[in-house]
């Protein structure tokens, strides 16, 4: 998709929304659509071959997290994993209490699930964040009550890219004997993960964020942690998650996570260099532009910035007309036009926030892409400000 088309360069900088399936990953998946299509739960030999491949993928996912294969459960994506983790954990823990701690900047998959749980009678504390989007581990400790049964804090934020102090929070959770869930959907392939060291009991991930296919994800459930099943039916996934397995997707998830975690540091260094060129260039050439999120503790591909005096959607569409694809916040709320609740939680007043633009770099991007954005973006901001009664 990148490179120059007939008339215009196309620059995809929305890797945090989704990524293309890598050709090697797709190649690994293809035989399982048409040839090795057997049902892995079947008795006969063809199903057994597929089962072997599925278990291979489970080992790949486990290896990426420092987990055991028996702790990995495949499901349909990050959102299902978040729903299952939260609903499943609090149902299983109901006898012990009804208080949940999370943060104000979680993805909607966690936030809306928490709101649903509030209606079911659970109490939820939404911890604030500082102006960089960081959760304070001390605030987590302070929020713990006698009846706290679950703490859920994301590993890295999807809007501003801030990387949370998950290890410190996990340590606090475990010291108090409270289950700890982390939404690692944005972190895989960017942040080295070790569920032991980080004291993680439950972890959500989604393949399409790291060049795997859409529609497949996994939930890590620490051995010995009981959560209620979420989808009832057949005996798939040891009876914990029913439904005929999306076998090509599982194979793709395995291949993609191995690829993504093979050289996290090298990959991150490459992205960070491109991203810093982009951020520095924009901040230098566009007046009244600011970086959102933490300057250092951020995902290597995330460039989230605000431009006072203009609107985010207008900026996005103007960029789109020039072949630059970014987003204003998280893709799922793009239709609503509301200012991102993440920025609001970081204390940015809606008016002052101005246009927030999230450009997330990834494997598709090159130095030429950065050059092109640096070429085009300042003029567009200027054009929009020229139309504005409050040009910043």
């Amino acid at each position, binding site marked *: 998709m990148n490179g120059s088309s007939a008339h215009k360069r196309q620059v995809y900088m929305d890797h945090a929304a989704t990524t293309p399936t890598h050709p090697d990953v797709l190649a690994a998946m293809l035989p399982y659509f048409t040839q090795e299509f057997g049902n892995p739960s079947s008795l006969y030999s063809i199903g057994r071959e597929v089962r072997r491949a599925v278990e291979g993928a489970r080992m790949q996912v486990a290896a990426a997290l420092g987990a055991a294969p028996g702790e990995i459960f495949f499901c349909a994506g990050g959102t299902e994993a978040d729903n299952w983790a939260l609903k499943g954990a609090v149902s299983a823990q109901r006898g012990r209490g009804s208080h949940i701690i999370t943060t104000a900047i979680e993805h909607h998959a966690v936030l809306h699930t928490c709101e649903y749980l509030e209606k079911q009678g659970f109490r939820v504390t939404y911890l604030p964040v500082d102006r960089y989007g960081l959760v304070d581990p001390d605030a987590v400790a302070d929020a713990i009550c006698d009846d706290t049964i679950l703490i859920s804090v994301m590993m890295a934020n999807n809007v501003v890219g801030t990387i949370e102090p998950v290890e410190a929070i996990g340590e606090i959770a475990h010291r108090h004997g409270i289950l700890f869930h982390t939404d690692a959907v944005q972190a895989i392939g960017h942040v080295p993960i070790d569920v032991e060291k980080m004291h993680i009991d439950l972890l959500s991930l989604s393949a399409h964020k790291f060049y795997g296919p859409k529609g497949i994800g996994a939930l890590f459930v620490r051995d010995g942690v009981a959560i209620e099943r979420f989808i009832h039916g057949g005996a798939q996934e040891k009876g914990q998650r029913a439904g005929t397995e999306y076998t090509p997707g599982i194979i793709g998830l395995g291949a993609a996570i191995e690829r993504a975690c093979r050289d996290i540091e090298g990959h991150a260094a490459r992205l960070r260099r491109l991203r810093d060129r982009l951020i520095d260039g924009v901040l230098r050439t566009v007046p009244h532009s600011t970086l959102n999120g933490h300057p250092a503790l951020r995902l290597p591909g995330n460039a989230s910035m605000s431009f006072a005096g203009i609107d985010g959607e207008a900026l996005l569409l*103007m960029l789109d007309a020039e072949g630059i694809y970014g987003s204003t916040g998280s893709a799922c709320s793009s*239709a609503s*036009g*509301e200012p991102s609740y993440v920025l609001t939680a970081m204390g940015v007043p*809606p*008016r002052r926030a101005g246009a927030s633009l999230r450009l997330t770099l990834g494997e598709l991007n090159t130095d030429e892409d950065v050059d092109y954005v640096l070429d085009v973006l300042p003029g567009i901001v200027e054009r929009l400000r020229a*139309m504005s*009664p409050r040009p910043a």
Partner: protein
Amino acid sequence: MYNETVMDHFTNPRNVGVIEDADVVAETSSPGCGDITKIYLKIRDNRIADVKFQTLGCAAAIASSSMATELVKGKTLEEAWKLTRKDVADALGGLPEPKLHCSVLAEDAIRRAINQYRIDRGLAPW
């Protein structure tokens, strides 16, 4: 999401800018989404001789301002007062449901400007 007419009025907005010697200037903002529209009117013989706008807002807000100013230009104040957001949205060939509220800004700013003009001249506002 947006049709071609909307995209055209967004990327090439008509009447954008400032009238330095305007007869009246008015501004509206939407408390919800923070959009702001400012309208400048030049009025001759009860008719809108010239109109300009500035908008801080999404594509729908900018396109609505552009279309609304086109629709009132040359009209009498009575005619211009009758312009509704529905007229604007219709002239644009429709707006997506969640963006309908953005077209209210232009209507609102034009009416404010007309009333301000009347008040400035000692007339009762409509």
